[in-house]
């Protein structure tokens, strides 16, 4: 696949109250943005388990976007702050894994900010496009095999590893 035509696949986790509605508003206002971000609705950006993000990347996503209400405007008082903390932790984790930390992005969009959300999406898609494909499943195949070896070992010594 030539680099110019690379279309990243991005999973977006949008909170039910602000950013999902911002995406609805972008639609109602017929604001166009790239089709690369596929949206999953969660009740709050605080619900986004870092494992969701890693899962998405490991299944072939090239980037993950998390969107929530603006700080101070969370429908659940302050849970978007927790999302923010986890986001920075996740970036750290990605670096540790040897991945580009810019493959994930946290943005804020209130229910009235359809235009802003569309702009965030446009920008993020462009940035991930520049990073190129991630190909986690195939790139990590070697590691995968190592993991299977570890599993096999663990099974062999299952009894001695038993935790009471």
């Amino acid at each position, binding site marked *: 696949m030539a680099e110019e035509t690379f279309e990243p696949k991005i999973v977006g986790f949008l909170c039910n109250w602000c950013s999902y509605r911002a995406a609805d508003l972008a639609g109602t206002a017929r604001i166009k*943005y790239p*089709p690369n971000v596929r949206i999953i609705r969660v009740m*709050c950006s605080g*619900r986004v*388990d870092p494992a969701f993000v890693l899962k998405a990347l490991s299944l072939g996503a090239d980037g993950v976007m998390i969107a929530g209400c603006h700080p101070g405007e969370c*429908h*659940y*008082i302050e849970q978007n702050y927790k999302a923010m903390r986890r986001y920075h932790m996740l970036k750290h984790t990605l670096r540790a894994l040897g991945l580009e930390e810019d493959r994930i992005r946290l943005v804020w969009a209130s229910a009235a900010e359809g235009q802003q959300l569309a702009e965030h999406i446009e920008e993020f898609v462009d940035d991930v496009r520049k990073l190129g494909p991630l190909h986690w*499943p*195939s790139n990590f195949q070697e590691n995968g095999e190592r993991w299977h070896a570890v599993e096999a070992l663990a099974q062999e010594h299952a009894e001695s590893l038993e935790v009471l």
Partner: protein
Amino acid sequence: MAERVGVYICHCGSNIAGMVDVEQVAKWAGENLEGVVVSRDYKFMCSSLGQAMIEEDIKKHNLTHVVVGACSPHLHEKTFRKACQNAGLNPYLCQMTNLREHVSWVSRDREKATEKARALVAAAVERVKRQEPLQPLSVDVNPATLVIGGGIAGLQATLELADAGYPVYVVERRPSIGGHMAQFDKTFPTLDCSACILTPKMSEAGQHPNVTLYTYSEVDEVSGSVGHFRVRIRRKARMVTEDKCTGCGICVEKCPRKVVDEDFEAGFGYRKAIYTPFPQAVPRIPVIDVHSCIWFERQKCRACEKLCPTGAIDFEQKDEIIELEVGNIIVATGWNMFDCRRIPQYGYGRLANVFTALEFERMCNAAGPTNGKILLRDGKTEPQTVAIVHCVGSRDSNHNEYCSGICCMAALKFGHLVLEKTKAEVYSFYIDMRTNQKGYEEFYHRLLEEGMHFVRGKVAEVTDAARRPDEAGKLIVQVEDTLLGKQRRIPVDMVILMGALEPQTDAKELGLKLGISCSMAGWYTERHPKLDPVATMTDGIFVAGTCQGPKDIPASVAQGAAAAARVMGMITKRKVWIEPVVATIDESRCSGCRICNNICPYNAIEYDEAKGVSRVITAMCKGCGTCVAACPAGVISGAHFSNEQVFAEIEGILWDALQEEKKAEPQAVTG
């Protein structure tokens, strides 16, 4: 039992079908997705025929789960859940995926949009198979209602509810209820006196056995949720004991300190340091303004205290906090006028005879500072020519892009009043004349006949720099007359600026307390701009009047009544059903680390010391799911948003990426 999923893809006329190949998506889902037994597309899924089709299929094909690919779940989730329920399927086994707002309406390329739609449908199918039947939770509704704001919209809502027999608490920031309408002289287009139609409502609210007024008070804090909100109200120190005051007014009469009234008189008139904003104020209990009172300035005077016949003055009074429990809240906080100083070329604050619309309202009012006479700032001279400038701060990309809606009609009303009360010529400088309600266009024609001059063009400048002899000593309005295609300079004596309606400066702050959001311009966002303009995203909180967007008195009254009707609906139901999206902890696997205890913003997780485990108090859980994501042992599950469901959704949404990876490295799947 194996899952038997039905997939239904909506054309939405051409709204979806125009950009997404819906037939192909439906066919693809039926052929490629595991567990799908029926997959159809239909012109309008939400129509009764579309719903009937789903219901029939559920029975005929024994469907266990349903996926509807149509518009946003915020629009039609209820519709399709109900259809499932009708066919005997638990409504929470239905999943909607948003192919309209999130795909067809935002895409340019049909092929890519179809690809995205396929991914979303695959995600929904994978997810729905893991969804579980749930029962909605019920909450009792407290019959009391809190109305924030005692303007005409809030008063209407208050009286509707009180008359129906339910207790209402009204919180008003100013010393009296009445809002902006109390400041006006006449109302358009009927020209009936504003006070004459408003004050009966005010006194009715003041005397109603079901209404409790908290004037000179503000909402400090709101907690709880629909059915049982807890509200903390700060009653600001009035320095007058309400139970003792009879409203005789001696204190006001004898107070030696006179200050400019920036609020009720819009800076155009005076009031005393102890004052009721206007004679018909409800309640008729004065307030001491501690910022202008001589006692608070230099510990002298206390004339009011000495002269009060009932000893109601209390200089030691402190702010008081009261707590209320209510089932619903109506927000009717109104608007604020654009500060015309922000457009310096119009000269307000610099050129004496430039007035704001509110100042002019007070000038026309018989109870106002000039006793209803239209006079220049010197208080003596009647103007010969009056200019009314429309759209000051509205329809202006430098300030507010929106149209304030009411200024055209208010300008016509001012024109009429000037023509009626003086011999002056009146010019209106408008961009477009917007008179689109009942009787409004007729009023415009009436003014055309009365001889008001209309100049179509946005005023560039108001200046006192004369260029010609006839301009000497006058204000000159510089404007491009877009109908003549010429620049004009029109000398006038008085200029009235129709300032924009703006949201209250602290609207956002209150919105945060209530958990409701504001639009970009700062107006409260309604649940749906067309179909639900009264409710907000937060259950049990409704909006009425101009806090939701600029509107005139009839519209404010209508929305106030509508909000009351919605609240009455909630009260008469006695119970509300809330989404069963709550967290539960598997106690057998909980290690008692208590990480979740602190992360919950509602303190809905308690720790059982005896068992050494945490437990969710279901009634307090709002279902944000943060604890689910935080539990290191993964033993908290969030109903309807469980890890399993979301993981499945991720897998589905990336089905094509997975396939590509498999193709690229076929051996990668060994093991």
